[in-house]
């Protein structure tokens, strides 16, 4: 759409700008403040420069949490995206089952995150939970509160359970926008199912897939409540992701300087990756 130049449009944006700036700018400046200074309470501050940043960037603990975070995000993207595409492709397009599928699939997305954690905790309890009991009675030694691998698997499966539907719904929206004529043309050309997918469905889903990956990347990189309720970051530190570690440092140990420095580095990493995504997305749209 060709847009007209109109500087008065700023007035329409102003309320949003003020509200978001109030919530974003003041807290962000507080974080920046803490990240550059040392305080012993009573509002007395000492200039520390970049000490905290160096400390965080060189700390083994941060490296470990960061790697765990990357591994987790990588794993859930590798599972959720193909699974989401597969479910979207096989979903009915017409008829009474469409609504049923959509409502049931969207259900996990609307459950409060701590309830998701609590639900999976109950589900996976080794002696009394549905999943834990079934696995153990099949002879699998499974106890997510003590085995790091089991804790990891449970966290990943929980996230797949929670968020794959987002990918499904997005892909489904993309698929529904393909006109029937495209499929008819493919059938006349004698295209195989794979060719139809590769040359018709996948290109049409490209846009929505970018949004899906962007949203899943952001949210999984910020994940806090679900693994915190499920495993509490344990056993040991094995499922302590970046946000959990950050809250431990900031509110648990009250080390405000290092926590603030870590916050900023964390935020910058998310921003950088999302900016790259966003640029690619917008470039495609403009073509």
């Amino acid at each position, binding site marked *: *759409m060709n847009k007209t130049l109109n500087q008065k449009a700023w007035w329409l944006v102003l309320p949003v700008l003020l509200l978001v700036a109030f919530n974003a700018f003041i*807290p962000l400046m507080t974080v920046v403040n803490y990240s550059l200074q040392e305080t012993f309470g009573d509002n007395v501050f000492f200039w520390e420069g970049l000490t905290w940043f160096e400390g965080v960037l060189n700390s083994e603990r941060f490296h470990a949490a960061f790697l765990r975070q990357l591994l987790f995000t990588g794993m859930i993207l590798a599972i959720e995206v193909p699974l989401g595409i597969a479910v979207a492709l096989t979903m009915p397009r017409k008829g009474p089952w469409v609504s049923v599928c959509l409502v049931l699939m969207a*259900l996990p997305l*609307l*459950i409060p995150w701590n309830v998701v954690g609590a639900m999976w905790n109950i589900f996976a309890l080794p002696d009394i939970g549905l999943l834990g009991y079934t696995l153990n009675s099949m002879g699998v030694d499974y106890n997510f509160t003590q085995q790091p691998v089991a804790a990891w698997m449970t966290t990943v499966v929980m996230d797949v359970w929670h968020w*794959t539907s987002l990918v499904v719904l997005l892909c489904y929206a993309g698929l529904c926008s393909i006109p029937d004529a495209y499929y008819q043309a493919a059938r006349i050309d004698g295209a195989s199912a794979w060719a139809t997918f590769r040359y018709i469905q996948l290109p049409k889903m490209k846009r929505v897939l970018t949004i899906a990956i962007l949203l899943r990347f952001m949210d999984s990189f910020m994940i806090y409540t679900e693994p915190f309720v499920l495993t509490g970051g344990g056993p040991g530190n094995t499922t302590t992701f970046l946000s959990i570690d950050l809250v431990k440092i900031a509110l648990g140990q009250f080390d405000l300087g290092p926590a603030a420095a870590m916050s900023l580095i964390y935020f910058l990493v998310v921003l950088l990756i999302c900016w790259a995504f966003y640029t690619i997305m917008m470039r495609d749209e403009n073509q």
Partner: protein
Amino acid sequence: MIRTRQWIVPTLYIAFLMLPIYGLISMSFKTTNEILGGFSFFPNEFTLANYEKIFTDPTWYNGYINSLIYVVMNTVISVSVALPAAYAFSRYRFLGDKHLFFWLLTNRMAPPAVFALPFFQLYSAIGLFDTHIAVALAHCLFNIPLAVWILEGFMSGVPKELDETAYLDGYSFWRFFIRIFIPTIAAGIGVAAFFCFMYSWVELLLAKTLTSVAAKPIAATMTRTASTSGYELGLLAAAGSLTIIPGAFVIYFVRNYIAKGFALGRV
């Protein structure tokens, strides 16, 4: 052949989604003794005691009321300020528009864990700590950008000729906006409201940080139960099951638009 067996994949997927929910709901109807006594697929002694406790104890049912109050407040604020802004982004070019749009989106990317402590200090300083409006305003941080993004997508699908015709007919901007434009994109507004509701309803970290007693959300009440009063799994399961209901309720209303909404109105 492939066509006829296609339903297997969605069916299996939905079964996988429903299993943990079933586990939660079935546990909510069990007595504590039965839960701790070992695993059972169906409740042996069916009991409503857990639900009774929640509906009679004010600390429990107030949690639901508090959550619903700030979620509704947030939805109303977010959508009403996002509407004119989204219109500006979809119709006009102005100084710094692209940067502003991206800056808005960056707030959707801010990890709530980063903002928890500064938010606590900010809202304490202005005397709003432990009020519903504090949580509603804090959730605006990520809900307004999302609402702007979704509404902008829907609005870009409305041809510009609609606006121009209305102005030629002598409509003022606000009269056109309220009488003609808003009804035209009603579906988009519904979807944006749904998403604001959803993200405000599921968020816990900020809601918990900004409240203590008077505006305590249900999710925080649940965490307290899990930690202090021993391990009342049945009660926890019942409270959890009840949090699913508002979500299921609002999904039903937007089911036909939900897929388009997740694509941010851009399909």
